[in-house]
């Protein structure tokens, strides 16, 4: 296994350079919210989701209700459902490792596994497993490192939580570029703004998500088919 991991490292380097800084920012943000590196370790280990964990910090800081946590986490990670769908054929015959492969199917793991050819000298299931495990470990390293630095260094990280806003701004641009019909994106701006004005900042999110999903479902077949790539 060690040998397989060593051979797979170079394929996973792009994810290393993405996960360390992003995990670091998460760790700083988590520590800023008053949580120690142990929390960062277990969150990275058991949640293993970039946007999902940023959102979780937000929930922790706000002491959010569980239905809100579940609903929003489900919706933000909904794209992973489609990663899974497209990996079903690839993950066939991977045996017991499939349990972990399914768990670790993040944006970056998916992107890497769908764009990298399995090297000739490694078995498919070993390669998939090694890549997922390496990515997971980079993510844990980044998160714990950030939380540790955040708890030790005494400079002000005020404003670090903007990293999440910036991330979503970037994702909006990415989605905008990959879709030719911008109605869903615009709907996603209008509904929460109206709900925010009507209901206020504490309880507007769940009604917003219900209305947005409902409107989109009602418009099925009306929004022109585009055959776009799914998600990011």
């Amino acid at each position: 296994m060690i040998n397989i991991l060593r051979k797979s490292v170079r394929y996973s380097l792009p994810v290393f350079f993405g996960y360390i800084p992003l995990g670091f920012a998460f760790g700083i943000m988590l520590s800023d919210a008053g949580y120690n590196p142990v929390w960062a370790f277990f969150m990275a280990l058991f949640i293993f989701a970039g946007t999902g964990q940023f959102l979780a910090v937000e929930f922790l800081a706000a002491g959010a209700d569980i239905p809100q946590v579940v609903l929003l986490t489900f919706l933000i990670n909904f794209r992973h459902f489609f990663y899974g769908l497209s990996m079903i054929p690839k993950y066939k015959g991977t045996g017991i490792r499939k349990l972990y492969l399914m768990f670790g199917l993040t944006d970056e793991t998916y992107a890497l596994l769908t764009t990298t050819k399995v090297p000739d000298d490694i078995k498919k299931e070993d390669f998939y497993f090694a890549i997922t495990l390496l990515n997971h470990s980079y993510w844990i390293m980044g998160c714990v490192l950030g939380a540790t630095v955040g708890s030790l260094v005494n400079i002000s990280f005020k404003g670090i939580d903007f990293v999440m806003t910036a991330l979503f701004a970037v994702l909006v641009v990415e989605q905008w570029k990959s879709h030719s019909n911008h109605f869903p994106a615009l709907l996603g701006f209008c509904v929460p703004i109206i709900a925010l004005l009507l209901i206020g900042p504490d309880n507007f999110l769940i009604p917003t998500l219900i209305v947005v999903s409902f409107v989109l479902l009602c418009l099925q077949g009306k929004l022109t088919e585009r055959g776009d790539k799914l998600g990011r």
Partner: protein
Amino acid sequence: MGADFTHSLIIVIAAAITTAGVRYLPFILFDHGKEPPKWIKYLGDVLPPAIMSVLIIYCLRNVNLLSGSHGIPELLCIAVAVLLHIWRSNVLLSICVSTVLYMILVQTVFA
């Protein structure tokens, strides 16, 4: 800590189970050769852009346009992130530059 220890723990567990659930679901439902229904595929196409927009507004929910800094640092730095991303398409660059700028703004000009 915003939430107490137990509540924090439950939030983390809920987030972990939900995330894992979403990732296991396609394999539980469709690993036997069944085709997923059309409306699921459709949602997979239209939901992500809508959710990203919703989340931007969610992040800005406590910004007050009428008082304090009037949301200037937020809107300015979002503009920086968006323009930079249209220009260079580098996720990390867009996020780092706009976040550092935001931190500088709220710690100095808008402190």
